[in-house]
């Protein structure tokens, strides 16, 4: 790929980091004295996750989780599965799942269903970008960075055909 074409920058790096710091402060005060685990969902939340983790001023454990599309040989469709599981024990701990973006919420719903079975003390969602109007399932989104509309986005972890994740800002794609 020669260059990544996008329409306009929606959130520049400064704006993103300032909001991430606000979220970090809020989480630090909400989880004071609690055993906190933050789980980043690969790959989209990668940069948000690392910036957020460093903005939280608490002792915490962190891990990453990845969801993949595994073809099901018995059907023409396939199913969603965890391809990189959490390595640390989350039972009895307070968990925050960190996402880059939530739209319909189906992927996150699957993830929460799976994590809830491990009996954490609590489980909440923190997403950088959020479109509540498109959400089909009510999720425990306790923290979010910015509301977005239906546009296709790129940068700060989000990709188009695996390119563009390393852009320091978030831009609207030409689609």
């Amino acid at each position, binding site marked *: 790929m020669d260059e990544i074409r996008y329409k306009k920058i929606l959130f520049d790096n400064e704006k993103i980091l300032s909001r991430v710091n606000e979220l970090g402060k809020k989480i630090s005060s909400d989880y004071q004295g609690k055993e906190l685990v933050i789980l980043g969902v690969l*790959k*989209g939340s990668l940069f948000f996750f690392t910036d957020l983790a460093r903005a939280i001023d608490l002792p915490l454990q962190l891990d990453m989780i990845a969801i993949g*599309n595994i*073809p*099901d040989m018995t059907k*023409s*469709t*396939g*199913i*969603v599965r965890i391809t990189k599981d959490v390595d640390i024990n989350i039972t009895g701990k307070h968990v925050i799942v960190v*996402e*880059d*973006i*939530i*739209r*319909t*919420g*189906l*992927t*996150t*719903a*699957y993830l929460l*269903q799976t994590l809830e079975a491990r009996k954490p003390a609590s489980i909440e969602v923190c997403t950088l970008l959020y479109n509540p109007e*498109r*959400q*089909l*399932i*009510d999720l425990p989104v306790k923290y979010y960075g910015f509301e977005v509309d*239906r546009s*296709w*986005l790129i940068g700060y972890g*989000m*990709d*188009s*055909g*695996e390119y563009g994740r390393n852009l320091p800002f978030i831009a609207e794609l030409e689609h």
Partner: protein
Amino acid sequence: MSIITISRQMGSLGDEVAKALSSKLGWDLITRDLLMERFFPDIRPDQRTRLGESAKFYLSEYKDGKTFKDTLSESLLSMAEESSAVLLGFGSQLLFSASDKAIHVRIVASDDVRLSRVQKQFHLSETAASELLSSTDRKHKRFVSHVFGKDSTDVSLYHLVLNTSFMSVDECVAAILAAFHEHELRIRISSETKTEGAIDHQTDRPVFKNPSEAEFAKILDMYHIDWKYEPKTFPVEWDSEGNVTLAFSPDFYLTRFDTYLELTTMNQKYVTKKNRKLKKVKELYPGISIKIVYKKDFLELAERLKAFGSPDPGNGQEK
């Protein structure tokens, strides 16, 4: 609270099924002996013997003008208000026949299998075991027939009839648990908005009205999200005689997320109409969560479904 009743033939392993089931659920197992201790604490030994021998004796007076049967029924029904239990035998399927919180199971086995089990268990000759089986069968049947006026072998009294000639105790327990959980879910969905007038048609056979619905069901399956198809209808307008003139039947109910979903894959004109209907449902049935799946989201999700099976399923924009 919930009740599972187990009626069983002698030699059918019904007792073992009931025991395993109650321990799996963590519920009390209520047997005849326990009933006697709990509900008839002051019973005389001769009365206890007669209850064991004669079904008719259940219809005689216990105390305060009440028969043994009345006392038994009342005590069991009030117990069921307080805690969930597995009830073994004594015609309990008939005491709870009208309750939608109860499921009734009968455990049977073929005569040959029962005969060989009873022979082994009591070290009996084939003739003696056969006599014991037929006299016990008669006694069970007589009890239910005298006390409740019903035939305990009538399969229409039960939600499930399981045959241990073909199934192990563990298989029976798994089947009962699966039936119980599905039944409990259906009753919950059915009762949630009953008072506001919603119509329950979960026992209808689900048939997708169009290919989009079938496709959406596949999308939900892909995400391991449990669903029921069109379990309910919510009337929203009535004429002066109280007949329903406008109603809304959301396409899907997501059981774990307590949310109804309605698909709109048609043009904007109908979507506006649907949105109006939805607003009315929300006013008339407060507390239920209904969301619309718009055409664009549906198409994007369907696209993702198609991408499955390929090594690169897309760019992760659809979350």
